């Protein structure tokens, strides 16, 4: 399978992707390899079913939502750059003086804010910028074991929303979401080491 061997040249617009995502050459190659392994028919893009075939994702309570996040705006396919762009959220944050960064450049994909935004979007199904009580309940239903009754779940959802809710609209906005995680080391908890 000579054509399938990994070469930087094979990756379309490798430099552009690297600039955008900050991945190293090696990681990009690795990801490209993986991308093609997932892409069963060598289509050049991934569809939902391609990702759904990953066995362990099926048992992940958030698996479907995470798959969905690879297909923003209702797309049915994701190409390599889109694939990498999502994964770039989980690149570890380098120790870097924020003052040194060019303020004109867009925030890197792996910044704290972007990591949080990614997580936030998993909750915010209707994309209205708020996690409503209902959305919170849905997530909880996925995450909490079957032993907890629906009523208890609802009360947990209420409580969770109330806890984070500051302006009293009964929903958690992104700002409130970040505030509720102020003390957590998100940079650390939302990074995977191999995605340097």
């Amino acid at each position: 399978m000579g054509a399938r061997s990994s070469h930087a040249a094979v990756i379309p617009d490798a430099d552009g992707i690297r600039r955008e995502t900050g991945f190293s050459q090696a990681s990009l190659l690795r990801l490209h390899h993986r991308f093609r392994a997932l892409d069963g028919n060598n289509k050049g893009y991934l569809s939902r079913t391609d990702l759904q075939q990953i066995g362990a994702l099926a048992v992940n309570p958030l698996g479907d939502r995470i798959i969905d996040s690879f297909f923003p705006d209702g797309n049915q396919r994701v190409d390599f750059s889109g694939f990498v762009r999502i994964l770039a959220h989980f690149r570890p944050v380098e120790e870097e003086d924020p003052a040194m960064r060019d303020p004109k450049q867009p925030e890197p994909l792996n910044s704290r804010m972007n990591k949080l935004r990614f997580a936030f979007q998993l909750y915010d199904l209707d994309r209205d910028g708020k996690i409503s009580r209902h959305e919170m309940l849905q997530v909880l239903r996925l995450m909490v074991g079957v032993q907890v009754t629906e009523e208890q779940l609802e009360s947990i959802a209420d409580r969770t929303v109330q806890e984070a809710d500051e302006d009293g609209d009964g929903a958690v906005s992104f700002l409130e979401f970040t505030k509720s995680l102020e003390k957590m080391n998100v940079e650390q908890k939302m990074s995977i080491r191999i995605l340097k």
Partner: protein
Amino acid sequence: MLGRWSGSFFWLVPSPSFRPQFLQFEISVEAFPSLRENGGGGGGSGDAGLVVLRCREDGETACRMPRAALPLLVLPLAGVVAAEETTQEPGAPGEHPPGLALFRWQWHEVEAPYLVALWILVASLAKIVFHLSRKVTSLVPESCLLILLGLVLGGIVLAVAKKAEYQLEPGTFFLFLLPPIVLDSGYFMPSRLFFDNLGAILTYAVVGTLWNAFTTGAALWGLRQAGFVASRVQAGLLDFLLFGSLISAVDPVAVLAVFEEVHVNETLFIIVFGESLLNDAVTVVLYKVCNSFVEMGSANVQAADYLKGVASLFVVSLGGAAVGLVFAFLLALTTRFTKRVRIIEPLLVFLLAYAAYLTAEMASLSAILAVTMCGLGCKKYVEANISHKSRTAVKYTMKTLASCAETVIFMLLGISAVDSSKWAWDSGLVLGTLIFILFFRALGVVLQTWVLNQFRLVPLDKIDQVVMSYGGLRGAVAFALVILLDRTKVPAKDYFVATTIVVVFFTVIVQGLTIKPLVKWLKVKRSEHHKPTLNQELHEHTFDHILAAVEDVVGHHGYHYWRDRWEQFDKKYLSQLLMRRSAYRIRDQIWDVYYRLNIRDAISFVDQGGHVLSSTGLTLPSMPSRNSVAETSVTNLLRESGSGACLDLQVIDTVRSGRDREDAAMHHLLCGGLYKPRRRYKASCSRHFISEDAQERQDKEVFQQNMKRRLESFKSTKHNICFTKSKPRPHKAGRKKDGVANAEAINGKPPRDLGFQDTAAVILNVESEEEEEEESDSSETEKEDDEGIIFVARATSEVLQEGKVSGSLELCPSPRVIPPSPTCAEKELPWKSGQGDLAVYVSSETTKIVPVDMQMGWNQSISSLESLASPPCTQATTLTRLPPRQQDAEEPQALLDLSSDPHPSFAFPPSLAKAGRSRSESSADIPQQQELQPLMGHKDHTHLSPGTATSHWCIHFNRGARL
């Protein structure tokens, strides 16, 4: 003869010098006392069966008492020698038989345990003295003070007794003093943190220890070869390696003692501490291997022995861990079935953990590793299974034992150092060792960290490395190991002992003293404690799942993948097997946090004396903005309230028939109304169940009374239900709190949509402890004391679009209050525009959970509210228009109406409606309810006193509630 039996028992008792000793006791039984034989007592006492118990360490004296009455403490270790001949009676040959002594001084009988107790007492008192001055303890670690105290005490003993006594004996240390400390640290180890850093910990523990041992040993040997160590130190390379192996291991006791006071960040702490625990396996292996090599003589060591040495490293470490896990499994499994014998739960924890230690020790595996793994592995399940009280007992006993052992260890270390007979000083060796262990530790840490940082997500920076190098304290393990050396095989033992003592003292005192300023000076990240919030807990889980999923997508089976796998496995099989059904649910982590937060709220609610009731707006005590409640009071009260309320709620929830309900209501009334007299005497003296202390009960009673009174006074004096919406949340404008909201309502502005999703009624769910399988247990009187009640704050799901008017529905204090004339606002009240669907919400602060003991009052107020709430459905027209005095007649009807058949348009969730019904019925016949009257006028808050006006009861009508 007279029917004598005697037997001899061996007691394993720590002797004054902390040497396990076998004390022999002989016990013989005489049906008739010697008095009659002596003829002194006359016939009267003949059949009295006087039992004399005399025990002596030398085992000559016979103890007369029935075997059956042997104290439980006696553990017959050696075989019982039955029917021993009885000629060795004390008063046998020629001795004048002793008369009945009124007073006898029997120091020897109690000497051993007495001395043990005394030493512990001295150590504890010393601790108290140290902590009298905060300045001293903030500067000097306790371990240093204890060692110094030990030195002083040892000096005194030496001066008085002319010989060094009460030293730290290796046997005592390894069998009695070390296990509690290790168990404590393993059991309370933050497991997530531990496994997150497992790679680093293992590296430092295995590679680091090996590195330290070999480099230190080799360098010392080099020093000896170079002539810096006097030639009288007779040691070859193997001896130095042996010494290096025992001196190289970082000591868990010392590290724990010093680092607990330093408060560095968790990662740093767990790495240093984890290393000190796990390196035990390596130390044990190295020590044993080197020791046997030394004993064999270096000439006889063959290549196969080296291989065996390497293999034994795996056997010892993995074997130790396996033993620990097996016992953890057994422990978890056992606690699953202790429901009816709660009292032995803490005992089981200690026994099985200790059994794990001893088993590993017996098989010469790493005992420390075994206990660590046992504690680490069993905690999750044990904590879920045992009751609250047992949990507290385990926690405190463990802490007490560990602290006690630690204190004694340091003190005895100090005392042992005084004994100069064990010493042989060589400056070259001592100085060389000190320098080498510091240097090689630092070098090792830097090298390993460099390698580790290639793989770590969060690299360990230079400051961390400095602290890690400097925090490599040596302690009692090294000392005990060096004492265990055989002088005939290791001729330089005395020098090694002296060097070890110096090293231990140097690391504990000098490094212990300076590490705090160093940490401060280097600005090492300190640990910060923040309370868990539901959001954090939930999001943390989300992050875990996200990371696991992303690892799947990337196709890299890393740490997150395996943890995810493990959690699935745990959930599916292990937890099912090891946890009680009921506990299994409780242990869902998110639920757990929720549960704890709720309880904390309830406690703080009480602590604040009910101010929360009147507070404006929803400010949860557990929210980050709020000051925290004292942790201790939370935990204490938590336990109290956990059990007290079950009864009430079960009554409410389970009672079905009308007659029963009546009874229940009466029961409540009586319970509330009658003050129980103070009880002086406790009738029950069961050994197996702790009955509630009388004092405790009384406290609870008073507490209940107070809370109830508070609620009632709040109800009857104010009769204001809805002045404050618990957390009014004007949707758009972001208006602040209820004041504004009410003002608007008064002004009759068209109410806007309110995000009332958060309003909620409170459901009190009674969780039956066991599920079907244990249904049979329900008949038992024994009640589960830790998980009686779950408060579920239930929010109504519908959004009230225009609910501002809700503020207008109030209870007037009495019918005599003059009703305000209808205002324009009233005319515009949404429910007056008469649309079909009407939803009545009894809202409260969702998360303001009522303390269990308040439920009575709570129920009453709920029912009163519901009775108020019901009229708009059927009789709203009259209700709103009627002057209050006419409502006298209407109120009962409303109550009736509600109780007989709740109106279908109620927005209560079914369970809530049900609960509400039973509640209202149960309290319907409480007379005082009758005087609660709804008052429709808005202006009534003017005559509400400000302090109490802010109830958090509100009734909201949604916009559709029109008449």
